[in-house]
């Protein structure tokens, strides 16, 4: 199934949840709506499912306008953050529910449900009740249940939001494999950037009801289109810099050319792992002093004071940090290998 969303808008009494959102999802594509809570991403998903109706805009599925047709006829599978399993039904009955309400014969729907239980790796649990399963297992059952009526589109609303970090990671790679196998068009809503970057063919970053950027995961990370995207996806050093002679300066650092009038203020974002740190001057030639070291496991986070009022964060692989003998108070040399400059007229 392919989807085309055009100028979707939804207001809730006093605030605009979705503000002129347009995008497309192609057949078999895995697309993620990424954004902070309240950014309207879940509302977009609910509008597509038909659980909410838009104030304006068009939702097209396979070229057909479905904006006003009821939920039941939309053929979407929806997975909720808190599983939403039917507590009083066995796992098998939960999965078979979508077939039961369509009048599918008991033997047929149970065979199908068992097949799906096998697909999600929970064979043999068919007689259990939802309360007897762990969170991860429940969410897999919820997924199997959503897949049972053979939807053309799978909608996942923060599906791993209620699980612990380790389990999230595990289920994430499991979901990726499952998607590669069944090739079902999927739309995921999450606030977890790792989840979005790892799973998706395409990421839509949302903020305040609008789409800030629509791009492949790599591009979202490497070429953020707006300041919001730069700050939201991945860690970043954010500094306010000044333009002089077409060059962007912030204290002793220079961030290359940017053609706005001299004296303009711009915002510069650069990632801590785009800061090159050396113990000898060379390629890196801006001097600074290490003010704090945080051990993060595979990397160390260094706070480096360049001069008074100009401190940056750099991430250095733990091995490199040990080799270079970085310690508190040591003088080092830095250069920023990649940065993103944003200029807004209002800030001039």
């Amino acid at each position, binding site marked *: 199934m392919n989807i085309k969303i055009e100028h979707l808008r939804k207001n809730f009494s006093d605030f605009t949840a979705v503000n002129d959102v347009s995008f497309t999802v192609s057949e078999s594509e895995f697309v993620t709506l990424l954004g902070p809570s309240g950014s309207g991403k879940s509302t977009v998903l609910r509008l597509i499912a038909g659980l909410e109706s838009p104030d304006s805009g068009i939702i097209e599925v396979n070229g057909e306008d479905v904006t006003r047709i009821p939920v039941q006829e939309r053929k979407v599978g929806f997975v909720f953050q808190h599983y939403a*399993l*039917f507590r009083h039904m066995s796992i098998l009955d939960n999965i078979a529910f979508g077939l039961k309400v369509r009048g599918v014969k008991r033997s047929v729907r149970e065979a199908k449900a068992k097949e799906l239980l096998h697909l999600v790796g929970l064979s043999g649990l068919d007689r259990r009740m939802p309360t007897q399963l762990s969170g991860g297992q429940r969410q897999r059952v919820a997924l199997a249940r959503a897949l049972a009526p053979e939807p053309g589109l799978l909608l996942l609303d923060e599906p791993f939001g209620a699980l612990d970090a380790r389990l999230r990671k595990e289920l994430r790679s499991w979901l990726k494999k499952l998607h590669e196998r069944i090739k079902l068009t999927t739309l995921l809503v999450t606030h977890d950037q790792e989840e979005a970057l790892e799973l998706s063919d395409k990421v839509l970053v949302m903020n305040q009801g609008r789409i800030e950027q629509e791009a492949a995961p790599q591009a979202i990370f490497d070429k953020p289109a707006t300041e919001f995207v730069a700050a939201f996806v991945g860690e970043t050093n954010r500094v306010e810099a000044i333009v002089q002679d077409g060059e962007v300066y912030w204290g002793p650092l220079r961030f290359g050319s940017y053609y706005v009038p001299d004296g303009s203020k711009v915002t510069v974002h650069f990632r801590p792992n785009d800061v090159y740190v050396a113990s000898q001057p060379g390629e890196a030639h801006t001097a600074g002093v290490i003010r704090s070291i945080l051990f993060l496991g595979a990397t160390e986070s260094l706070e480096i004071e360049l001069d008074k009022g100009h401190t940056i964060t750099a991430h250095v692989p733990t091995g490199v940090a040990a080799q270079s003998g970085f310690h508190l108070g040591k003088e080092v040399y830095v250069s920023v290998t990649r940065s993103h400059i944003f200029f807004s007229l209002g800030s001039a």
Partner: protein
Amino acid sequence: MKDKSVIPGFGPTLGFTIFYLSILVVLPLSMLILKTTSLTWPAFWEAVASPRVLAAYRLSFGASLAAASINLVFGLLVAWVLVRYPFPGKGFIDMLIDLPFALPTAVAGIALTTAFSSGPIGRTLESMGINVAFTPLGIIVALTFIGLPFVVRTVQPVLKDLDRDVEEAAICLGANRWQTFINVILPVLLPAAFSGFAMAFARALGEYGSVVFIAGNLPMKTEITPLLIITKLEQYDYAGATAIATVMLFSSFAVLFLINRLSWWAHTQRSSKEAL
């Protein structure tokens, strides 16, 4: 039991529970049975199985069952409206539900009798050929009135706690409103509705004050069992009164036990699936 818990411990709490129940429930009820034993078997049989008494049992149980059933259906409906929809005056209506609890039953009886005999409702119904006052129908109306809060108040909190996403999951899976209600919502509400039903039924069986006014109290026709007991007492037939009371006691206990069993059975139907 060895685990330390917040409450003082199993021994003292169970001890207190048994003591409390003995003083308040078991002791008075055993006096009832004791008093009854002063009768010989034939006299006992005469007291509890005369046609007039049998008619009263039938009426009491029948009307109570009818009233509790009406409350089951409309209680669910009222609870639904109060939980699911916002509307002006909701708080006031919510308060009205408890009124039958607070009102002295005699006041309820007089009010209902006035409304259904000489009042506008009564006259309108009469013109349609329906007599409420001084008929079994009147008794059902009174018993429905006093039993109203039970189902509403047991179902309300359960309905409030019911997650919206469970219903949304059902409609996304293709279920229409009716299928969603029957398959997803009702099974969750049923245990609470059942216990509300049982309480409404038990209350109706014992009700006296609100019924005597509207019933008319014609022997064989509109005479409920509690009234019969009072009548016996007024005639100083204490043993006869307690004999009927004993029968009521055991049959009420049996009915409540049955209802409990039923909801327990409904529950284990699910647990037996869990065990597999």
